[in-house]
């Protein structure tokens, strides 16, 4: 029991914080605990959840991807251009998701084969992709895609928004993928000790590339949702989205250096960040504060995990 408690201390802590925030907000605003508002929170954070889950796998593998936001914008632009070129909605979406996966593969290939620090590489890729989006769109949004596409962003099935259903499905698939299947086992081993994984006879490059393909695909799904919601693809879309995703994953207890992951933690962290945003809006606090608070929470969660590591005497790899 104590072992279980110490293993999940970060998640238990998050749960407590979440409950505390909810109690405060319920006291502050009658509207907060209504089904309408809860649905609101879920819908506003579904795409963040999707990207954060993808990022959790990448962080577990020992790297971070700073180009995720740029991939979101690039995928949006690709889908917009192909829709305007007369592609059907399924074809454009498939193209978008394949491009996201391809951009992820590019990141994975670069990281694996050049051995250059992931930070620099993904930052460079991010700059390139944003530049291409700007060039293609001439800096202007591409708009109007028709009802069929917009449905993907705001359409509902059985009362729940499609994006919320997608996010829930992804979370449920991610648990077994991360903890009960070979692939997830190798992803965390890659972050834990790449050398050991290689010496076990596993093709490390394949794991590295596939985990980035996974993130690329989640970024593309994110792009579908936000492009459809806004009915517009913009070169500046997805700005700072990678930071939100990294914040959520690290807050959730996934080790910054890789090797250990928590899907449940990521889910909780996304919800906490979402509830805070919602609460600030309900209390009519300016959205400028929200950015500040996200950064602050990243700092606090990194500090907490660092203190936890020091206290338990665990080695950071």
């Amino acid at each position, binding site marked *: 029991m104590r*072992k279980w408690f110490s293993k999940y201390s970060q998640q238990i802590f998050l749960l407590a914080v979440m409950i505390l925030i909810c109690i405060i907000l319920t006291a502050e605003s009658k509207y907060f605990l209504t089904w309408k508002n809860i649905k609101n929170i879920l819908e506003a954070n579904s795409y963040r959840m999707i990207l954060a889950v993808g990022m959790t796998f990448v962080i577990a593998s020992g790297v971070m991807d700073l180009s995720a936001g740029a991939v979101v914008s690039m995928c949006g632009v690709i889908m917009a251009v192909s829709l305007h070129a007369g592609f059907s909605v399924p074809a454009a979406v498939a193209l978008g998701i394949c491009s996201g996966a391809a951009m992820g593969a590019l990141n994975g290939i670069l990281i694996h084969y050049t051995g250059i620090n992931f930070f620099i590489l993904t930052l460079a890729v991010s700059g390139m992709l944003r530049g291409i989006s700007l060039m293609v769109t001439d800096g202007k949004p591409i708009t109007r895609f028709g009802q069929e596409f917009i449905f993907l962003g705001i359409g509902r099935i059985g009362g729940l928004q499609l994006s919320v259903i997608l996010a829930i499905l992804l979370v449920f698939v991610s648990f077994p993928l991360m903890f009960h299947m070979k692939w997830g086992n190798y992803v965390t081993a890659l972050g834990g000790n790449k050398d050991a994984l290689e010496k076990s006879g596993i093709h490390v490059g394949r794991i590295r590339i596939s985990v980035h393909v996974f993130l690329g695909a989640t970024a593309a799904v994110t792009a579908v949702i936000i492009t459809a919601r806004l009915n517009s693809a913009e070169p500046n879309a997805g700005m700072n989205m990678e930071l939100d995703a990294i914040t959520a994953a690290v807050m959730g207890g996934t080790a910054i250096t890789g090797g250990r992951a928590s899907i449940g933690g990521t889910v909780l962290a996304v919800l906490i960040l979402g509830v805070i945003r919602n609460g600030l809006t309900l209390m009519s606090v300016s959205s400028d504060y929200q950015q500040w608070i996200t950064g602050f929470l990243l700092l606090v969660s990194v500090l907490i995990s660092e203190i936890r590591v020091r206290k338990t005497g665990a080695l950071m*790899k």
Partner: protein
Amino acid sequence: MDTPVVEMKQVKKRFGYIQALGGVDFKAYPGEVTAIVGDNGSGKSTLIKILAGGLKPDGGEIHIRDRVFASLTAKQAIEQGITTVYQDLALDNCKDCAGNIFLGREIMKCKILLDHRLMRERTKELLKRLHISIPDITQPVEKMSGGQRQALAVARAVYAGGDIMIFDEPTSAMGLKETSRIMELFLDLKKQGKTIILISHNLFQVFDVADRICVLHNGFLVDSFLTGDSSPQKLHEMIVEKEEEMTDEEMV
């Protein structure tokens, strides 16, 4: 005399301007323990890393049974029945005992799901059989002591099996009792007809279990003999002498 299972011919390896191996011939026979000794930096680990795959030699040939390789990947080496305990142990510190023992050879249920429970049970049995005491096998390796980690790496190798087993200083952090258990294990593995390659700085230990001893010095094989033809004292003198010879040469 038996034919060697492993034969490395004129294996060379450079790291920048450091000549780690300058054309080494090495043989290992089935049912024998072949020890490699030499001072720090003499190229022992480099030699076995080339055999275990992953490190590409600059020249030479590696014969394993009737196959010839210019270099091997870790995967090829494993397929050839080579199991290795590396000097740095190659453990994933974030995973627990079972996670490490079964990394790359997981037990599955329903084809696609990891059978964590069965792997944990097998781990318990294995550690018990090898008399390795680790109080809590579910904690990550990073919380284990140096000796416990070494024992785990040895257990991992035993579980992996393989006809050719390489141990790079497997007992350097172990206590007396634990070390003697590992020595017994070597004799046991030898009886099973396995080819064992042991790197160790403990000459008495080497003379206890090894059948054949190879002495490396500055990347060259300077001597190789049967254990019966020498003694720990003579070997010690030889290693020290080599060192002095070299310093003399350098002075000239």
